[in-house]
């Protein structure tokens, strides 16, 4: 199935906009909807890191070219929660146009 052209990155920021935040939004825009739908917010930090697959052994995320700051699990949870709300809001519209 063709993935809609998600643009969570283009949404008004829900917290002060940072370079890591911009790149994390772009990261979620590249995540298939089917995978995102399997996200369970109550999973443990360890399970979340395994579920995503892009965390490093030092506990931070490997978010390429995010040079100024690290993305930890807490930040990841804040952004993915907002991304799920965004997709729930626009999914129908984007799928209709896809």
């Amino acid at each position, binding site marked *: 199935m063709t993935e809609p052209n998600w*643009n969570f*990155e*283009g949404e008004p920021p829900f917290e*002060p*906009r*940072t*370079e890591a935040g*911009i*790149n994390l*939004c*772009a*990261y979620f*825009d*590249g995540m298939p909807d089917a995978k995102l739908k399997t996200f369970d917010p109550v999973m443990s930090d360890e399970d979340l*890191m*395994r579920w995503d*697959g*892009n*965390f*490093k*052994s*030092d506990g931070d995320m*490997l*978010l*390429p*070219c*995010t*040079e*100024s*700051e690290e993305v930890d699990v807490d930040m990841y949870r804040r952004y993915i929660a907002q991304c799920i709300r965004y997709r729930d809001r626009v999914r129908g519209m984007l799928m209709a146009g896809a």
Partner: protein
Amino acid sequence: MWVRKGERDRALGVDSPIPTQVVSNEEFIPRPQTKKQKQVEDLIMEWGTARAKKLNMSRRAYMASSMGLCTALLASNCVYGQDTFEVGEDEAFEPRETEVVKANGQKGKFFIIDVQAHYSNGIALNFRNSETARNMGFSLKDDVESYSFRTFTKEMFLDSETAMVVISGVPGKEEQRGADGRVLEGAERTPRGAILPSWLMAQSRNELNAMAGSQRAMCQGNLAPNHYWNATTNSIDKAATIEQMERELNQYKINSWKWYCHTDPARTGNGFQLDDDNAQWFIEESRKRGMKLISVHKGYSYQSRTLGHLANPKDIEKAALRNPDFNFVVYHSALKHGATDGANWKEMNEYNPETGDFLWHKILMDIKRNNPQINNVYPEIGSFFNTLAIQDPVMCEHGMGLNIKTYGADHVVWGTDCLWWGSPQWGIEAFKRFQIRDELCEKHGYAKITDDVRAKIFGLNAAKLYGIDVNAQRNALPADALTRVKQAYLDRGGLRDNDYHGWVQHA
């Protein structure tokens, strides 16, 4: 889960003198090891183990020697079916003059300046507690920062022939004043932590040079046109930028700027371009103060619509034409290697084996092709030569062949992006032996790589950019403390660790 390549190797019992897959410098998602890379790895282990036994050496010692490195390059040639690396079978049993113990700038054929060297307090290091590390004269603090710096010093200077390094910036801005208006100093200026802020690079350079008793290190300054921003007017804060510029030039005495156009340390919501108004204003202010060297990251970028495209090198053209008295060193030779290209990276990078072109390297090449008068742009080859040498030797031949053909052998600059790649010695040995096959030279007009070309790329070009008198340095270094420390280290059996700090997939 991503782990450091060294962790992965230890878990699998691999001890390889060259990385057996590309490691991520955190500027792209690590790629899986290819079948050919696994074949190279298996051959290295098989041959290295047998040859060490034949020479009555431990495998550890053999793999840390130039003989082990030659075995690894022979394995690469064998698997890829060509002689990208000019190495003889005899070198796997008997070291040539290039052995580390005889080199380090003073005796080696090449004077090596690495313009892209980083260290990070995030790198797990094994050096501090090793036998050879004790009582070696390091007068460094015993904290995490110096712990990393110590390994940086070991891997750059004791384990490799590198004569001088440029400690290269990682984007991050400094806080200038506390809540009480007091000017902050040192670590106070990066209260939330930072990998390599300007103050720390300058401090490390000074510490290294003081320890050596000669000039072994230079450093860059991170200040860029989007670091100090007036949120009210949504425009550059010129007063704060000038204050920081003068601090980095006069107090830190930086040797070059280091820019990352696609980053946003000041939280402006955007990056910048070399040819925009703010960058030009910065360049003019820097010109007034005598700093005319700009090192800029290009290539390796993320998919963010907002920031990712700003790492495209297209903006170099106008900036170079408009500012012919400045030199622009383009890091990574603008190799794009997108963040999400994974196993199909060649297709994603639009690599054309017929022309040798690939993203965004072609844009950098086109700038010179379209403007032959440009003489102030220098492709730098950190995480370019070493990445391509491991990923695809033919593509590496194209990349280096194009750099030299297009910009000239006197404009290509040696850098490694180590410590991501561990000690840079494997890359040095690889480049000493690197060659472009006849077929590609004939078809594409590439020149053969001669020692004259290698000497320029290894250090003579960087020396001109940084104002280094190579002859004076060659005379000074043999007598300096770092050379003596190196000799003591080698006398006590110090060995290169073959420990790569960049990221790969968990074993």
